[in-house]
């Protein structure tokens, strides 16, 4: 035991001394990193403004975030990110102090403390049949001193105590297959109603006792013509539905166990309509909304099922739910769009002729249309009612409007980043004014003097604050020009809303944003969504005056065979230069390693019919492509079929309309995984822009190993089909993980290896000649990480210097994939304590700096793990020579060093991806992690060996030099004097 402790301590000491751990001091936080918190597109909002000192709004979003926002500034008070599978269905406030969320299809009910967001209770509501989740919180219903919450989910109605989440009673309603659509609780009564439809032809109404859940009455009535769509409950005893043709409105009354239908033809209410009508979900008492053609019509139900059209507006407008005001009135907010502005009107629920408020607000065109409106009232200084509205825009941003102004706005589109590309900034123009230089020189000197004070520890607390401020607000950081080290760049970010943002890497501010025309909903493109971003034009600083641009790919539907769209966006200005589409489907996007004279990168888009289309569509590009036609190959992994296929590009395709830019492809190879034992779980390839510094690796005993470096390496992992489910669903004997390293030109399997008793999820990265992957070992009940390194034996004989001198080596001969590769692999596995959400590897400009594997942990942090820990040549007792080479003694698990968390104390909630961008400075790589939050930092895997740190004290250096010079002079004079004295003696 003693020995073990000693060994452990020694090991610890070794790690502590040898590991160039990236870590920061407290005062360095925020110097080169920034962190932004978002919530996503708001689905529901509940205001909490009465009797509250801090006015707040509770929101739930499409990113499954429940958050409390400050209504004055839009800041986040608290926020919880539920898992990706825990979709929030409804939110509300109970007892005035709990936020109630219903999620996961009505099966999880949670209460959060309103002031601080602590979870108070959680209850799981079990049911069998999936159904529409409903949440009803009556304002003043007390049963045995408990306030009840009614939840309908999974076929059951539950009454839950709001104080502790205990289920008081539950009752199954969906046993006959009835689709319950609404829960109604008339204030002060003993009965709760549940209304729904059975098979679109029968209306059912249940009456239940609120105290016991006892079924008091169950009435139903057949409607032979059949309903279409959902019910809209207008009052406590009236609902409205459309018949199956969409032409007849049916008013359903269900009072005291009696059900009656009243039919009204839509054309009686509104003249000259053509299409079918749809009832929109709305919550305005006594009223419902109907969408016909391109307009929205508000229809009021007046005494005993008579209908009356109240208002008619264009369909691209947004309506809020009704807000009850004192004196039994209702207010509804309506938003209409104008040219570059929006018109907000607030109408009284029972009197639509006049407006309570009418305001025009200037609105940025790049925010698109208003998607949702939430209204809230407050008491003005003159005791009248004032209104504020929260609006959700097409780009997912959230804005608060009050008194005709935008009080605050949140760019919550950035919570759903799809893809990231980095773009260089423009080169600094010459000619800076002298005054500016003088000013900055003075500032510079002052700053350095302050820093000097700090170093010499004679700084007052005020000075320390000033130093920290100078550090954080370094004016250099946010400049819009390129810097010497390549740290300042633009991050071009594509979001799910179809908006493109340019973020400055210095401080994370939005430089420009653009809602792309190609990714906006239109008649030709119903469900547009972005796929990816690619570098389109990246002019070299000497070559062109043109601005760089990016290519955005999108799709008009959810399948890979739906029509594709593309746009080209200038990265300096954000201007959309060109947009094309809808065109052929986009199944694969292949950026080719060729550029034309305009420095536009050639791209090959493969459609669902396996035709390859070349972009840009110019004769020059075609010429370049034709020359390289025989050397272009691509592959596709058909995950559902378990087949990997390789293709070559052939001649022009035969279509009805001749197209010079369309090419046929043909099958060249295929790998068929046995469907009963293997299913594709993950694939990974090398980053296209990775630079490898050296092909050779010199080992400690002066041997040379040649890395097998190929751009065509594909890592593929398959798991047993049974083991596709979550961890623990299979026994170790049933599960195995097979990993493949495949050359994608010839389909050669270079390496194949089975991990018995292991299962996914598999996450992998490929870089240089190595692959690191992460999976779960069922036998050891732990996560594992493995490394495979591939070495080329065909070049192994090149280590003779003489041959190099005589030129008989084959290092410069062209490589063809058709030669039989002589490779050997080395591999090793280690335990790893964390599960991993995403994986990336650091990239540097020249590839000299050692690599780090970046792991997005389950705790939404980014951990940097040195590649040296994942070296297959690690042994238990490395020799002295191996130690000098940097080989770490073998351990069974990978160490997690707290200082190596790149995100230090912060969390990137809902982490989805990590992008690494090389800086111009070789030692440094830029890391951008995105999820619901965004985080950016700089990393130096081997420390900044090629530059002085930013807080290097130049003043101290200068002073030292001056002091030395002075000292030289003084001593010189002294010695002169002394010599003179000596001579006079």
């Amino acid at each position, binding site marked *: 035991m003693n020995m073990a402790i000693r*060994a452990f301590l020694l090991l610890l000491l070794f790690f502590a001394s040898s590991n160039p751990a990236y870590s920061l001091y407290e005062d360095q936080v925020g110097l080169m990193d920034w962190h932004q918190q978002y919530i996503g597109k708001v689905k529901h909002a509940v205001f909490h403004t009465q009797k509250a000192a801090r006015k707040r709004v509770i929101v739930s979003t499409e990113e499954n975030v429940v958050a409390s926002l400050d209504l004055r500034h839009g800041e986040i008070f608290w926020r919880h990110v539920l898992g990706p599978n825990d979709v929030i269905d409804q939110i509300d406030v109970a007892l005035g102090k709990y936020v109630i969320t219903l999620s996961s299809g009505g099966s999880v009910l949670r209460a959060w403390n309103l002031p601080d967001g602590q979870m108070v209770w959680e209850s799981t509501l079990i049911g069998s049949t999936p159904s529409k989740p409903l949440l009803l919180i009556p304002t003043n219903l007390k049963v045995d001193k408990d306030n009840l919450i009614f939840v309908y989910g999974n076929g059951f109605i539950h009454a839950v105590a709001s104080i502790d989440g205990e289920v008081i009673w539950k009752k199954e309603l969906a046993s006959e297959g009835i689709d319950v659509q609404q829960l109604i609780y008339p204030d002060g009564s003993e009965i709760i109603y549940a209304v729904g439809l059975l098979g679109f032809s029968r209306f059912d109404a249940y009456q239940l006792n609120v105290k016991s859940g006892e079924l008091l009455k169950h009435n139903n009535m057949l409607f032979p013509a059949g309903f279409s769509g959902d019910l809209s409950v207008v009052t406590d005893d009236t609902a409205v539905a459309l018949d199956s043709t969409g032409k007849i409105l049916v008013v359903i009354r269900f009072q005291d166990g009696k059900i009656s239908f009243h039919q009204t033809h839509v054309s009686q209410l509104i003249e000259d309509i053509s299409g079918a009508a749809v009832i929109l979900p709305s919550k305005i008492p006594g009223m419902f909304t109907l969408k016909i053609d391109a307009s929205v019509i508000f229809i009021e139900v007046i005494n005993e099922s008579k209908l009356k059209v109240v208002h008619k507006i264009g369909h691209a407008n947004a309506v809020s739910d009704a807000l009850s005001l004192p004196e039994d009135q209702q207010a509804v907010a309506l938003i209409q769009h104008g040219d570059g502005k929006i018109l907000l009107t607030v109408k009284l629920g029972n009197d639509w002729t006049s407006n309570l408020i009418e305001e025009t607000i200037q609105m940025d065109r790049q925010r698109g249309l208003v998607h949702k409106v939430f209204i809230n009232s407050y008491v003005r200084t003159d005791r009248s009612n004032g209104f504020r509205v929260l609006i959700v825009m097409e780009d997912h941003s959230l804005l608060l409007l009050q008194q005709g102004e935008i009080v605050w706005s949140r760019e919550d589109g950035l919570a759903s980043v799809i893809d990231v590309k980095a773009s260089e900034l423009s080169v600094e123009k010459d000619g800076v004014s002298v005054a500016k230089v003088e000013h900055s020189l003075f500032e510079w000197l002052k700053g350095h003097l302050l820093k000097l004070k700090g170093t010499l520890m004679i700084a007052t607390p005020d000075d320390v604050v000033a130093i920290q401020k100078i550090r954080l607000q370094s004016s250099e950081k946010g400049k819009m020009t390129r810097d010497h080290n390549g740290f300042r760049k633009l991050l071009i970010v594509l979001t799910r809303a179809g908006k493109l943002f340019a973020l400055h890497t210095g401080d994370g501010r939005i430089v420009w944003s653009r809602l792309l025309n190609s990714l906006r909903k239109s008649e030709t493109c119903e469900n547009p969504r972005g796929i990816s971003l690619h570098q389109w034009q990246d002019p070299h600083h000497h070559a062109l005056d043109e601005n760089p641009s990016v290519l955005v790919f999108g799709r008009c539907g959810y399948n890979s065979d739906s029509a594709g769209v593309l746009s080209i966006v200038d990265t300096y200005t954000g201007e959309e230069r060109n947009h094309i589409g809808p065109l052929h489907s986009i199944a694969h996007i292949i950026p080719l390693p060729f550029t034309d004279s305009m420095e536009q990168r050639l791209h090959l888009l493969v459609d669902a019919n396996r035709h390859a289309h070349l972009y840009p569509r110019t004769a020059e590009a075609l010429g370049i492509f034709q020359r390289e036609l025989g050397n272009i190959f691509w592959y596709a992994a058909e995950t559902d079929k378990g087949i990997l296929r390789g293709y070559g590009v052939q001649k022009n395709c035969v279509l009805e309309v001749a197209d010079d830019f369309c090419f046929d492809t043909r099958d060249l*190879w*295929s790998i068929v995984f*046995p469907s009963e034992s293997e299913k594709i779980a993950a694939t990974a390839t090398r980053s296209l822009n990775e630079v490898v510094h050296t092909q050779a690796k010199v080992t400690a005993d002066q041997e040379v190993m040649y890395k097998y470096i190929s751009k065509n390496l594909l890592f593929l992992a398959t798991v047993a089909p049974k083991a596709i489910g979550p961890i623990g669903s299979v026994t170790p004997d049933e599960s195995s993980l097979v990993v493949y390293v495949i050359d994608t030109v010839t389909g*050669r399997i270079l390496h194949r290896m*089975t991990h018995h008793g292991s299962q996914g999820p598999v996450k992998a990265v490929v870089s240089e000649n190595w692959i690191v992957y992460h999976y779960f070992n069922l036998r050891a009940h732990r996560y594992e990480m493995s490394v495979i390194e591939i070495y080329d034996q065909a070049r192994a004989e090149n280590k003779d210097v003489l*041959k190099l001198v005589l030129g008989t080596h084959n290092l410069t001969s062209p490589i063809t994939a058709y030669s*039989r590769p002589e490779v050997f692999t080395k591999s090793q596995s280690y335990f790893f304590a964390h599960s991993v959400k995403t994986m990336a590897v650091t990239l540097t400009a020249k590839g000299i700096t050692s690599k780090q594997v970046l792991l997005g942990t389950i705790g939404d942090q980014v951990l940097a793990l040195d590649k040296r820990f994942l070296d297959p040549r690690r042994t*238990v007792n490395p020799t002295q020579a191996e130690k000098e080479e940097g080989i770490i003694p073998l351990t*069974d698990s990978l160490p997690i060093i707290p200082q190596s968390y790149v995100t230090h104390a912060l969390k990137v909630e809902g982490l989805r991806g990590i992008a690494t961008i090389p800086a111009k400075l070789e030692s440094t790589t830029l890391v951008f992690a995105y999820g619901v939050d965004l985080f950016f930092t700089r990393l130096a895997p081997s420390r900044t060996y090629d530059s002085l740190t930013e807080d290097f004290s130049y003043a101290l250096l200068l002073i030292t030099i001056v002091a030395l010079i002075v000292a030289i002079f003084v001593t010189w004079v002294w010695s002169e004097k002394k010599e003179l004295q000596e001579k006079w003696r």
Partner: protein
Amino acid sequence: MRISFSSSLLSLFLVLNLSLFLAATSSAFQSDELLLDDEEFGIEGGRSPDPASTIRPTYTPPSTRKRAFESGSDPDSKLQFTLEHAFGDSEFSPAGTFSARLKTSSHGGQTLTKLRFSRNVFSETERENFKRLLEGDDFYRIRLPSNVLSPPGREYIISSVKARCLPREALDEHFVIHMEGVNVLAVNYGSPGSCQYPRQLKLPTKWSFKSHTVLKNSEQAPRTPVFTDEVVGENGEGEELKPPERSFWAKYWMYLIPLGLIVMNAVTQAMNMAEEQPNAQPGSQTQAAVAARGQATAVRRR
């Protein structure tokens, strides 16, 4: 001197290379005999044997065999499956037959052993087609069934190579068949050695195939090392392995060199002083020396 040395080395290298080459070619002309090495398969948990031992070059006479032997209750049954080929974009046609022995292991797993391959000789039209491929630098494609028991299984396994990679003396081909039980995962097809790039047009002297086939099964991944306290105790026995003692010079050179420099400096200075002493003011020097001596004696006296 040096040139002759290097040239001799070069010649040595050439000889070595030549002998290696000869060895390689001679190894290609092995007998057709089956190697009874089937014990290697299946037993060691599917660890693939050394490829060299399974390369069975078959210099094939034209053979016409009947397909699909009847497999009885015999655990080791024979089976056959066909190789088909296509020239460029042409249709696939039979090109040869693989025959193997199906071995059923005790725990139910089935593996193939003793794989043999017999190639059909090119017909006149096929030869013409192949010539055209060579001229056009096009693909020669082959395919295999993905399941050897019930061909073609789910789908055919396709592989292809640029035709110009194959011709040497004869047509040299090399199959690596990746198996999983009775399923064929993939076949890597190509020339046994390297393929020159740019590919030159070269017609084979003999229009027959020299085939090499390798069966490959999946390798086991190395186990994660598990360390317990005992292991550490065992090999450490409480004492860290001491690195071999380095020489005094290796350890302290960084101190010794500056020291040496300083000493040298001092010595040269002393020599200079000694030279200067007589001709620069001797009187004052001696006086000072006397004074110093006097002081020293004074101290001593005290």
